[in-house]
């Protein structure tokens, strides 16, 4: 990426990619920016940044900038799960993120990310969908999760999953009551108190840890340049207890089973620390109360 303004961008010598500087670094646990193979860049998380949503979060991971908004709307439960609400994901790769997303260029990546999110949430324990049910077979809450890629600086999946978890933590769904009168017709009444809401439990919401294979080692939280040098990556979706909910391999290169096992173990280990840090930041932010100074987009 080329930027004349405040940022400096880094390129790597393309001569002999296998021997390049970026590939040799991880062997000694020293990457180009001085990090070790299992170190993340500094992450900034802020919730409640968009006012007309039920919940929102913004995550900055190095140069990667993600904004997630959650809107709760009433809908009809799915036929096969009449007692539950559901989540819908939509990912928009903005043309501002990188020139490759101009026009329809970002659609493929957006669909891929959305499908990955569906997969990692497609189990009973991630989000308790029964709390989203209003009246069985008739009404339920549908959470529309919109992900906006503002800037692409490598390691998209991790940043997006952190942002989704933070946004769901921030989501407050209005409490409703179902009133049934003598004729049997139902009426839904919204609570008068604007602060009377249900909060979702995000304890079991998984986060994605991407492990990129560079040379003979694997690294966590790869920058754009490191991703360009990596032939294969493993996406591991891990909960806070270290349980793997889903795993996916991306890239043209191959991975042998031993590497996959090693990468999975690293993913579990790193994932637990990721969840612990995220929980503490979210609780810290909440404890500052409604009077905290919001930084938002103009800070």
């Amino acid at each position, binding site marked *: 990426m080329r930027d*004349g303004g405040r940022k400096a961008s*880094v390129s790597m010598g393309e*001569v002999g990619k296998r021997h390049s500087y970026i590939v*040799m670094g991880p062997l000694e646990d020293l990457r180009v*920016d*001085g990090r070790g193979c*299992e170190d993340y860049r500094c992450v900034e998380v802020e919730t409640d940044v968009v006012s007309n949503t039920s919940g929102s979060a913004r995550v900055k991971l190095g140069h990667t900038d993600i904004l997630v908004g959650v809107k709760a709307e009433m809908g009809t439960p799915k036929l096969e799960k009449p007692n539950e609400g559901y989540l819908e994901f939509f990912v928009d790769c903005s043309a501002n993120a990188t020139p490759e997303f101009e026009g329809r260029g970002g659609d493929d990546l957006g669909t891929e990310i959305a499908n990955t999110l569906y997969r990692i949430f497609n189990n009973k324990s991630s989000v308790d969908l029964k709390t989203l049910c209003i009246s069985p077979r008739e009404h339920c809450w549908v959470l529309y999760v919109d992900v906006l890629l503002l800037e692409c600086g490598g390691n998209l999946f991790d940043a997006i999953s952190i942002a989704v978890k933070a946004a769901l933590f921030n989501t407050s769904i209005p409490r409703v009551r179902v009133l049934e009168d003598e004729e049997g017709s139902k009426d839904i009444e919204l609570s008068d108190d604007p602060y009377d809401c249900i909060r979702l439990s995000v304890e079991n919401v998984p986060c994605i840890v991407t492990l990129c294979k560079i040379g003979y080692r694997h690294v966590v939280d790869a920058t754009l340049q490191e991703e360009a040098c990596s032939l294969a990556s493993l996406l591991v979706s891990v909960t806070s207890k270290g349980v793997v909910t889903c795993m996916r391999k991306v890239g043209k290169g191959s991975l042998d089973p031993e590497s996959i096992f090693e990468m999975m173990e690293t993913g579990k280990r790193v994932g637990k620390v990721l969840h612990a840090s995220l929980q503490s930041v979210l609780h810290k932010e909440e404890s500052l109360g409604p009077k905290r100074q919001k930084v938002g987009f103009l*800070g």
Partner: protein
Amino acid sequence: MAMEMRLPVACKPLSERLGQDTKKHLVVPGDTITMDTGFMQGHGMHMEEEKLIVSVAGSLICVKALKPRYIGEAGDIVVGRITEVQQKRWKVETNSGLDSVLLFSPMNLPGGELKRRSTEDELAMTGFLQEGDLIGAEVQAVFSDGAVSLHTRSLKYGKLGQGVLVQVSPSLVKRQKIHFHDLPCGASIYPTPEHKEEEAGGFTANLEPVSLADGEVISWLRNCIISLVTQRTMLYDTSILYCYEASLPRQIKDILKPEIMEEIVMETRQRLLEQEGEGGTPEGQDCGPCRSEDCDVWSPYVAQ
């Protein structure tokens, strides 16, 4: 493993941090700057009807591009990447408005001899530099449309080997007489519109793995340069060296954290201030942004 998550902190505007009271305004092409007759036309604007009236000496207004491109001058040393191999030349990308050109004939071959042009030589030339290679070269001439012609007539130019390339805004790179710097810490730096720190130069790229100690120094310098650029500080050998020394007590990966970055750059600026005294343009140096020797707003370390 290290994992740090935090809440965002609003950063103070740059002018407040530096304690300056220079006023800056953002303009876009087409804006009227002033109708006042007391100003002289400077760089980056033109006169249209009565909008800017050139008059007697007064203040100078300068319009600076937010994202400037490199404007070549003969004698500059640049680092560029080969984008295309054409019939009699290579096209080199140097972050300027147009691609630069490196002709086959004035090439320095292995062995240090300058070969004369012939058809077999031209075919052999394509084997030396390929698309994607990084080279160091000197600007020979600038064409009327702004495109730049390069040459690698001496042994110190040519293919660049193992190291890190840091791309920065051209306005932050100070023009100096000597461009290749071998810093006391061991790495070499070529300050050009693109920065490069590396261990070996020459015509055939050195692809040997870099040792851990060298690798650490390179990462250190890379992070220092990035922190200087983020804080809008001019880049030259002294500022980079001071920044490196100020950052030594900390860990390499911590340098890029916002508060530590600010601390280190403040320390660097302090040292530079002490070294160069205050105000005015030192002799023999010109202002980075407007290249004037009498610029009143010149500062050795702040690019505005």
